């Protein structure tokens, strides 16, 4: 028990990095995903196609490869090439990748809203933007909570991929102690940490779903 208390500080520090990546990614990729979904449903065919290609690329290649590319290869790409420090590079990769997944969730959600809702709003004089903001998106949120919950829980675990950029997240912190002390118990503690975070998320989403359950469709 003493040992566990001993290794807690570095693990908590690692959890801080994990949570930072998680929170920033979520805060940026959800709005970006929504914007991509709206573009994916645009009336302009080339815009639809471009976003479709982007989503295909982001979902069709491993997140780890994308992260390595942004960190190691992007600096050598002409014109857009920039050298990013590890943390921003990781964030950019996560946001670009998760935005693609959220875009697909939003798109499916938006398309599941019946045409009658748009027509009901239109004959009342609401503009397209007002219809989206006031009528469609609030209903979309209720419908996409389960897949968003899934994606969010996946993200908390995916953050461990940043070990390839040698960042000290929860998993890497645990591994460091394992190698130092020749014991696997840090892994068990790390697992417990992930489980607690997942539990909190699950509980949070359950709460949201209950909140949205006040109305049936």
């Amino acid at each position, binding site marked *: 028990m003493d040992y566990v208390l001993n290794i807690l500080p570095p693990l908590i520090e690692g959890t801080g990095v994990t949570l930072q990546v998680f929170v920033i990614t979520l805060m940026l990729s959800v709005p970006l995903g929504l914007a991509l979904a709206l573009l994916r449903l645009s009336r302009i065919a080339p815009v639809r196609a471009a976003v479709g290609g982007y989503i295909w690329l982001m979902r069709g290649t491993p997140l780890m490869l994308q992260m390595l590319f942004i960190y190691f290869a992007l600096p050598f790409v002409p014109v857009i090439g920039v050298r990013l420090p590890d943390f921003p590079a990781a964030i950019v990769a996560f946001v670009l990748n998760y935005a693609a997944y959220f875009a697909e969730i939003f798109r499916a959600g938006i398309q599941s809203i019946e045409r*009658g*809702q748009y*027509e*009901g*709003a*239109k*004959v*009342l*004089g*609401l*503009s397209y933007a*007002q219809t989206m903001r*006031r*009528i469609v998106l*609030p*209903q979309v949120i*209720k419908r996409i909570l389960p897949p968003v919950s899934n994606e969010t829980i996946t993200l908390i675990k995916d953050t461990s991929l940043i070990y390839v950029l040698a960042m000290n997240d929860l998993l890497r912190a645990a591994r460091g102690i394992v190698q130092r002390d020749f014991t696997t118990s840090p892994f068990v503690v790390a697992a417990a940490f992930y489980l607690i975070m997942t539990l909190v998320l699950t509980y949070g989403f359950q709460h949201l779903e209950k909140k949205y359950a*006040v*109305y*049936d*469709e």
Partner: protein
Amino acid sequence: MQSMTNEATPAPTPMLRAVDLHKRFGAIEVLKGVSLEVGRGEVIAIIGPSGSGKSTFLRCLIHLETVQRGCIEVEGRTLVSTDTGGECRYVADAEIRTICGAMGMVFQHFNLFPHLTVLENLIEAPMTVKGLRREDVVPKAEALLAKVGLADKRDAYPSRLSGGQKQRVAIARALAMEPDILLFDEPTSALDPELTGEVLRTMRELADEHMTMIVVTHEMAFAREVASRVIFMDGGLVVEARPARELFASPEHPRTRAFLENML
């Protein structure tokens, strides 16, 4: 009896004028030159067999569909016009919204907003579209709910209401925007037979208050008793348009006669 007074007042500028509307979906022509003039306070019933273009006609009037030829004027303002060369032109988007703001529509399937309570359904458009403050629109919304007999359902969500109640909320919601013309597309067709009465009663009250209404309906009794004029459509054309009691008493066209014999 109200219908008689409706007939007797010819308006100088019609509330609504549609001339020679043509609408096609791909290869099929659904409207083949439909015209209609509606005076203030008139109640027009549109009847006709399934697929004759009744819904499409209403939807073109309120810009849920666009026509390929013809002209629509609402209270003297042009929504769409067609020049002699056959060039069909809609006015600018902002103007379309203003012009269509004079009309409200009630749908067969209500199209209430399920995530909003009854009251919120009513105040959504006045607040969002007209920018009115909540405290200014709530009393009026409550009065409208009382008018359709649903004051006690103020805070209920639509899913908790019966079909008849939903449709009355939909009517109140349309009225909350203070339209001059109300369009109804088969407002009772999705209802259980025992629930149609309450909706028709509400519509009758509106007619008594001289609301201008265009009602696509299969309710022949309503058409006969409430409408000032009845339009019989078939195959994308107006076959017969006459004062209600005339049309029902002595339909001129054989197709009207056949349709009415089937309905009654």
